[in-house]
């Protein structure tokens, strides 16, 4: 994949969105076009990964050929490529599920265009190298999610939709205000340029509280401890597949951005890490523990799974917090970041898979209240098998993917002597197993109880949905059995995040790049001039 082709990650979903808008009366064509674009998306993501991984290259494209800090940059490094690959697979499986399991109403309106625009926003957030574009990508993603939220709504869902929309709007407004403040302080919004400023210790003192407040914005999107209140109330009202899509992508985009911002951009600035690290670590412990307690106390499949999202976010936060708290570049730091990345990838796949399983459970049993259903093991043995694999993977039993993610995070925690958060992580893991077993034993294992809701007369057709789940389970299994391969890629990504010299060099060019200063030996850097000499642009007529 050549440098300029990375723009396809934005162009393809957008083209799919346009095409499906044109075709909104022709349902069949809409589906085929969507499937074609999504498969192309997976192919390109894998190609990007194959290009980036061997040498840790960074693919950079400057929109409109404007030079770096002035134009819009998009860049794909190892982290972005990994995220893109996982996200595109998740999108395809959810798409399969939606196409085969949703009825006409649920797929009606502009569901398909919105689905593709959601993917556009997600992928754009993964590849953008510009802070303001991140905001725009977030907005596109959220706007599409609002619209999907309201497709085929019941009254209850509408009420929750207000909550979701309004809280996200307030978060977005805060984000854009902070961006204005950051631009006022630093004079640039290009991520590589800000990284350069942070690496050469040129961040003004007054910008530190502004940057630290970013935790609130991204934390709100990711649903970390004090800002999670919107999530358990809203996600469970969604149809399972949409819940899976949101759970697999939206909160993980938040986590990705937090890694990008606090580990890569500001991870080298002592003043900021001192503020952010304790917040993240404390919040990580509370988030994961309270989240899992909430999940254990719930009685419907979708509620359990949606509160579970929060608890899993805690692990990602733990990785980031450990990495930021460990000041200098070291093995522990790399391990913590790699663990967080591995965990995000694992969680995207497994969480989404569990939501899809929950959806099929509803199809089979007519309800997802665990006190009313039962005996699904006999009715749907394949579903039970796939659910079991995904659930055990989430709980972190070896040799499945969750185990390796947690293993890396826990050993990073032990080595950096943050025992409290490690203790909570282990405890959370135990409760996770408990909550998964609850779904298993009530939903699948127990005999059908007397008072269960009326079963559908004929067996529902679930082949399409099962394919979607099967793809995700295969990916999850490969992440468990081939953990070494995945972990190597994650630690490569981590390495380039901890020392972002290469990223800055790739985006800004050689001469502007400072060396990472260890031991306070700061290199001489001239303050950046925003004024380009006019003669260099005169010829282009501007």
């Amino acid at each position, binding site marked *: 994949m050549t440098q300029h082709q990375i723009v396809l990650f934005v162009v393809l979903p957008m083209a799919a969105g346009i095409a499906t808008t044109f075709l909104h009366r022709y349902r069949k064509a809409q589906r085929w076009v969507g499937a074609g674009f999504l498969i192309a998306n997976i192919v390109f993501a894998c190609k990007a990964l194959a290009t980036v991984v061997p040498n840790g290259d960074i693919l950079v494209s400057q929109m409109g050929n404007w030079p770096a800090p002035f134009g819009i940059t998009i860049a794909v490094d190892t982290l972005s490529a990994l995220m893109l690959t996982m996200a595109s697979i998740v999108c395809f499986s959810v798409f399969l599920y939606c196409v085969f399991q949703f009825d006409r109403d649920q797929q009606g309106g502009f569901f398909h265009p919105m689905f593709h625009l959601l993917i556009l926003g997600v992928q754009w957030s993964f590849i953008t190298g510009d802070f303001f574009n991140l905001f725009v990508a977030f907005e596109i993603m959220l706007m599409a999610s609002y619209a999907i939220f309201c497709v085929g709504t019941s*009254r209850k869902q509408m009420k929750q939709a207000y909550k979701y929309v309004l809280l996200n709007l307030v978060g977005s407004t*805060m984000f854009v*205000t902070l961006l204005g403040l950051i631009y006022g302080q630093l004079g640039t919004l290009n991520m590589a340029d800000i990284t350069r400023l942070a690496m050469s210790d040129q961040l003004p003192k007054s910008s530190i509280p502004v940057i630290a407040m970013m935790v609130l914005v991204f934390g709100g999107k990711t649903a970390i401890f004090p800002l999670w209140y919107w999530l358990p109330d809203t996600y469970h009202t969604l149809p399972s597949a949409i819940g899976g899509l949101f759970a697999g992508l939206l909160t993980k985009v938040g986590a990705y951005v937090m890694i990008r911002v606090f580990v890569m951009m500001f991870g080298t600035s002592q003043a900021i890490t001192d503020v952010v690290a304790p917040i993240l670590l404390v919040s990580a412990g509370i988030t994961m523990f309270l989240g899992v307690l909430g999940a254990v106390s719930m009685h419907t499949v979708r509620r359990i799974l949606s509160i579970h999202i929060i608890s899993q976010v805690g692990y990602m936060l733990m990785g980031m917090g450990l990495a930021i708290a460990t000041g200098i570049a070291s093995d522990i730091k790399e391990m913590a970041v790699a663990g967080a990345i591995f965990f995000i990838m694992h969680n995207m796949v497994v969480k989404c898979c569990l939501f899809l399983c929950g959806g099929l459970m509803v199809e089979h049993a007519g309800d997802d209240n665990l006190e009313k259903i039962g005996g699904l093991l006999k009715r749907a043995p394949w579903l039970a098998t796939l659910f079991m694999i995904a659930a055990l993977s989430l709980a972190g039993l070896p040799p499945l993917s969750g185990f390796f993610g947690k293993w890396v995070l826990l050993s990073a925690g032990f080595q950096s002597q943050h025992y409290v958060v490690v203790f909570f992580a282990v405890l959370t893991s135990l409760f996770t197993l408990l909550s998964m077993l609850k779904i298993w034993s009530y939903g699948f294992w127990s005999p059908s109880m007397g008072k269960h809701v009326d079963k559908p007369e004929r067996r529902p057709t679930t082949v399409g949905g099962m394919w979607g789940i099967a793809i995700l389970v295969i990916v999850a299994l490969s992440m468990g059995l081939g953990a070494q391969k995945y972990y190597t890629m994650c630690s490569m990504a981590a390495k380039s995040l901890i020392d972002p010299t290469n990223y800055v060099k790739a985006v800004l060019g050689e001469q502007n790049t400072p060396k990472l200063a260890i031991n306070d030996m700061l290199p001489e850097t001239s303050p950046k001039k*925003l004024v380009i000499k006019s*003669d260099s642009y005169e010829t282009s007529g501007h």
Partner: protein
Amino acid sequence: MNLLIALMVGTLFGASAFLMLDRELKGVCMGVFMLGHGANLAILAVSGSPAGKLPPVLSHGVDIHTFVDPLPQALILTAIVIGFAIQAFLLTMIVITWRRNQTLSLAMLATEEDAH
């Protein structure tokens, strides 16, 4: 001038906080719209100062004191467009809610929800 804009931002944010605590959805949405306007003004106030930054592209023979960095304005324009789309979306949601429930009162909507 900056003080004036700061006061306006403060007023807008305050008014929007007041409106968002309203019991009717109309008021809540108005509050959100106002919040957006406040944010746009805030960007203008904090980053558009002619004293500090210059536009990245200049040609020969212009007086640089007459130029302002255009980027914040581009940011604001983008934010306005996004805010515009969101306003349309929220208004549509309100219309649908009204058509279905004949009420926009949050309390009424809450009581009609079945207890879980």
